[in-house]
């Protein structure tokens, strides 16, 4: 089961503030370079891309490769303009896709 956590600051946000968003998702990020005890290759299974949309507009995206650790954690700033959903989407190998969103509320 995939679990993701998104953190939007709970303090009051004013229009024009830079807010830090954090997101973490459970994923093994198997590199494809390892082998089992019997020498069989463990196939690659990583998240390739993470996209963040704020109020429907893409504001941040990442391309990920094998060097990213398990359970990728991303933190970045966005300029708050208006109240709206912050939607994260993770896309990866083997048809992996997970979407989760949180509400960013701007007061004043």
């Amino acid at each position, binding site marked *: *089961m995939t*679990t*993701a*956590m998104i*953190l939007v600051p709970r303090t009051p946000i004013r229009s024009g503030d830079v807010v830090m968003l*954090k997101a*973490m*998702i*459970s994923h*093994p*990020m198997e590199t494809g370079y390892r082998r089992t005890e019997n020498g069989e290759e463990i196939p690659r299974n990583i998240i390739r891309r993470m996209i963040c949309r704020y109020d429907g507009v893409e504001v941040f995206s990442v391309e990920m490769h094998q060097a990213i*650790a*398990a*359970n990728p*954690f991303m*933190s970045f700033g966005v300029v708050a303009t208006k109240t709206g959903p912050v939607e994260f989407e993770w896309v990866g190998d083997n048809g992996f896709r997970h979407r989760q969103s949180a509400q960013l509320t701007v007061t004043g």
Partner: protein
Amino acid sequence: MRFFIFLALIAAVPALAQGIAPQDRRSGFETMGPEAQAMQRDDFSNPAMLGVAAGEAAWNSAPANGKPACSGCHGDINATMRGVDARYPARQANGAVMDLTGRIQTCQSQHQAITPEPRESAGLLALQAAVALRSRGMQIEAPASRGLSEAVSRGEALYRQRLGQLNLSCAQCHDDHWGRSLGGTRIPQGHPTGYPIFRLEWQAMGSLQRRLRNCFTGVRAEPFPAGASEWIDLEIYLRQRAAGMASDAPGVRP
């Protein structure tokens, strides 16, 4: 090469046989690097909290056979599981001594009538992490004060028993040489305060038994089978040794 010279040196030192004084005890959290500490301090960067979130979801979801979810019997996890992990392993009503993992497996087989999830499975570790979080900051209770003195002494005997091809006991590293280097890493005192942990080396959650297995293979001893009573005895002794220290579960460790 240096690693083996060091091992040869500690093997040559006679066992000091006394433990660590209570005021000198340090949890793995205190002795690990500042980056790993920062990762654990912020619940939002602690990967073990993903396990907690999955465990809380599992707590509230009933199995397909119509039997109750964990919450069906135990109710709100925040209320009923408070302090539970701090007093495990514990003696059950039927006299059996179980670790938290074994207790959850028993619930799954007896009350939910499902095949218990195996040890080290993500599902079981997640449930355990969700329960353990409810004891965070609380003091680990001494097993000897709960009628487990015999298990404590069996565990202590194991702790002081030389093992494996390297012929080393737990005590020789974790009592006599904690704080020194072994193969480039710092030897911790080995207090089980944060289990289940997210270990960076594993890139995954794992139990105390998995960690103990690592030490066994490290000294080239054959580990006991998963869930063996020897592991439980050892865990009980380690909890006795760490009694009064604060739980920081679920922890991050290097």
